[in-house]
């Protein structure tokens, strides 16, 4: 890695004592010698293991659940169903007033994706829990399912999640989050060329080294300590408090050292049910995803579809951009309504475009619920935007790097979501890339600056 200190030298104070120093990490010796304690290193006497009975169907009504054989299985201590969860219907962002509650901790009456949790089995050993889980009998009536966002949005599509009433999240702005800036149709009318293209992605797994999980121990005073690898301690504590209808003062969360998350550990999935198990049995409980569960059950990055329509002039200026984004939330909201909204704020990318029109939809399908992942709401959008930029440049016979200089945002430029640009540095990054990659651009671009009064 090289630090190029010649850029922005006039606004940077160097020569600090500790900041800017390549100090070795204090926790790295523990990590590389295997001595760092992660949540799963906690082992308590009498600890129970929790295994989930999961839906084999994408969409089905639950006619009945029979746990009698599982309860008789040697080593089984407790079997939990929806009726055992005090506030079974929840949604994570309800803490900041984003509803409606649309997901069950344990399925109640219906399953909406393959892998959904239906029954929790607590046993003396992992093996006993697994064997007993296989003995739970669930009678399903399979329902029509929808897996494709466009199909889900069509009239007459099976309703994935009744708590929403339709297969999209209803924002205060309607079926989508909107951004409107300038007059996009006037921009297209003025343009020398108009190009509309569609981009698509499939879900992506976070693949952390450490799988999702927690170990819960009763403190003996009606309090419960939850050792967890959540990425957000109070998010999890506060949601658990609502789900279990327990005062937050009865909950103690300990974490802090996590073996990779990338956004995959912000959903509140394992902790509430494990704490409930500890409360109802009075014993410590361990609930850890297997690698298969991590890959099949935990929320992936959403599949997305992005449609971009641009109007450009022969001189390289983009004069209008219309973006429609679709985020596949899967069967439940989790953080997806926010991800789709974040996308709306991110388009039209780091470019100054006078006329912008953006709609982003959060769509429900009978697929694994998606949620946050590194670059949440932005990563696939950047793929779409920057491939589109390449196509636009080639359409008018311009060098793709020079084309970006013409449109790059600079300090003071108004963005489509009506925030003036501050601290821009796109131009300087491209100038340095031009040098590093030996991809020359015209001298006038190398003389540009992101500063408000720059060339």
């Amino acid at each position: 890695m090289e630090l190029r200190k010649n850029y922005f030298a006039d606004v940077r104070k160097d020569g600090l004592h500790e900041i800017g120093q390549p100090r070795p990490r204090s926790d790295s010796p523990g990590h590389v010698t295997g001595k760092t304690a992660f949540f799963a290193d906690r082992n308590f006497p009498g600890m129970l293991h929790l295994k989930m009975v999961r839906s084999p169907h994408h969409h089905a009504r639950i006619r009945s659940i029979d746990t009698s054989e599982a309860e008789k299985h040697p080593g089984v201590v407790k079997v939990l169903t929806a009726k055992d969860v005090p506030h079974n219907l929840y949604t994570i962002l309800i803490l900041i007033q984003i509803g409606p509650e649309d997901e069950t901790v344990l399925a109640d009456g219906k399953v909406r994706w393959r892998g959904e949790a239906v029954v929790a089995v607590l046993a003396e050993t992992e093996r006993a829990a697994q064997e007993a889980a296989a003995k739970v009998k669930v009678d399903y009536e399979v329902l029509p399912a929808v897996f494709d966002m466009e199909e889900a949005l069509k009239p007459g599509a099976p309703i994935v999640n009744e708590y929403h009433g339709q297969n999209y999240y209803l924002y205060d702005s309607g079926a989508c989050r909107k951004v409107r800036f300038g007059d996009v149709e006037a921009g297209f009318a003025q343009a020398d060329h108009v190009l509309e293209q569609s981009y698509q992605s499939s879900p992506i797994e976070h693949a952390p080294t450490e799988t999702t999980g927690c170990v819960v121990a009763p403190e003996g005073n009606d309090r419960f300590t939850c050792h967890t690898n959540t990425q957000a301690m109070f998010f999890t504590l506060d949601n658990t408090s609502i789900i279990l209808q327990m005062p937050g003062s009865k909950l103690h969360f300990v974490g802090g050292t996590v073996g990779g998350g990338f956004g995959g550990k912000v959903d509140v999935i394992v902790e509430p049910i494990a704490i409930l198990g500890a409360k109802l049995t009075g014993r410590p409980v361990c609930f850890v995803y297997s690698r298969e569960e991590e890959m099949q059950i935990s929320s992936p990055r959403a599949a997305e579809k992005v449609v971009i329509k641009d109007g450009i002039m022969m001189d390289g200026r983009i004069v209008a951009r219309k973006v429609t984004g679709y985020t596949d939330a899967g069967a439940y909201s989790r953080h997806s309504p926010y991800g789709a909204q974040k996308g709306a704020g991110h388009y039209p990318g780091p470019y100054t475009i006078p006329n912008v029109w953006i709609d982003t939809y959060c769509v429900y399908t009978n697929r694994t619920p998606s949620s946050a992942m590194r670059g949440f709401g932005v990563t696939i959008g950047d793929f779409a935007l920057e491939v589109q930029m390449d196509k636009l440049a080639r359409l008018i016979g311009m060098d793709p790097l020079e084309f970006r200089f013409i449109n790059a945002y600079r300090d003071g430029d108004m963005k489509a979501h009506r925030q003036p640009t501050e601290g821009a540095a796109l131009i300087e990054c491209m100038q340095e890339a031009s040098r590093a990659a030996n991809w020359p651009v015209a001298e006038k671009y190398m003389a540009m600056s992101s500063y408000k009064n720059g060339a």
Partner: protein
Amino acid sequence: MAIRRGRGVAAINYPTGMNLGGDPTQALVHSTPTGNFMVTLSSVDLGQGMKQIMAQICAETIGVPTDRVVVDTADTDTGPHCMGTFASRGTHRAGNAVIQAAKEARQVMLEVAAEELEVNASDLETDGQGNILVKGAPQKSISIFDVALSAHFKRGRSISGRGMFLIPRSYPEKETGAMKPSTCYAHACTVAEVEVDDETGEVTVLTVKNVFEIGRALNPKMVEQQLVGGSWMGISHALYETTEPYYPNRDHGGTDFNQYLMPGPGDLAETEIIVLERPSADGPYGAKGPGEMCANPQIPAVANAVFDAVGVRIDTLPITPERILRALKAQAN
């Protein structure tokens, strides 16, 4: 049939923070009787090095070496509130909270030192080595160790501080979408060079040259680990990863690392990382959040390089050999 070479460029920006509920994080800082400092948070270290960075930020602000600072992360009984480690917000939000807490603790420390040295607190400075000196008269000094002993055992003072980062929550305007979803933006530009085998559809990423602008590199080695790892993830997203290879069909989803494809050591591109620093106005010592931004520009840069090599556009991720071969076949017809 041949191996064809191409290169592609992509440039991006990325917001720091999420500002969904005001995006708050708090920090507490206090000294032990021997003049070491404890930072208490409920922020999580995901492996990116949050503890080390918070120690350096606290040390710089108080004026002690980093190894005099211990960081306690993520215990809800002891740590004040943090929204969480996501949205490229860890260093930025928690760092600002630690600076505020450390400034308050430093002020108490200087007040105690001023009483010991019989001068005004405003006449004192720290040397970064564990001592407090009188400005212009450095021979008149006291160690932070002695200041802490005095505070704890003689003067009954708590060398401690409270810190908070909070910005007002932004509610998007319904009709126009006017909103302030984040504070500062990090930037990047990547040029990728690839080889595409037009007989097998296989893509080899030869080089990625990544330029990242991240505000300030608070610890350059740790910035490097983040940026190199992120660049690898970007290439992985571009060419390999999907939980559902026949999307939207759910069949054949991966269940382990044999079935979920990612590039191995033999697939690594030659990776060059260049960092620019334009300090952000509201960042801790100017830092922005590079954690997510660094994994994004490689994806379109690789896609554009594939086009440059073989003249077909793959607009669906991941860019698999099958998709390239189908596109080449369609183009030939």
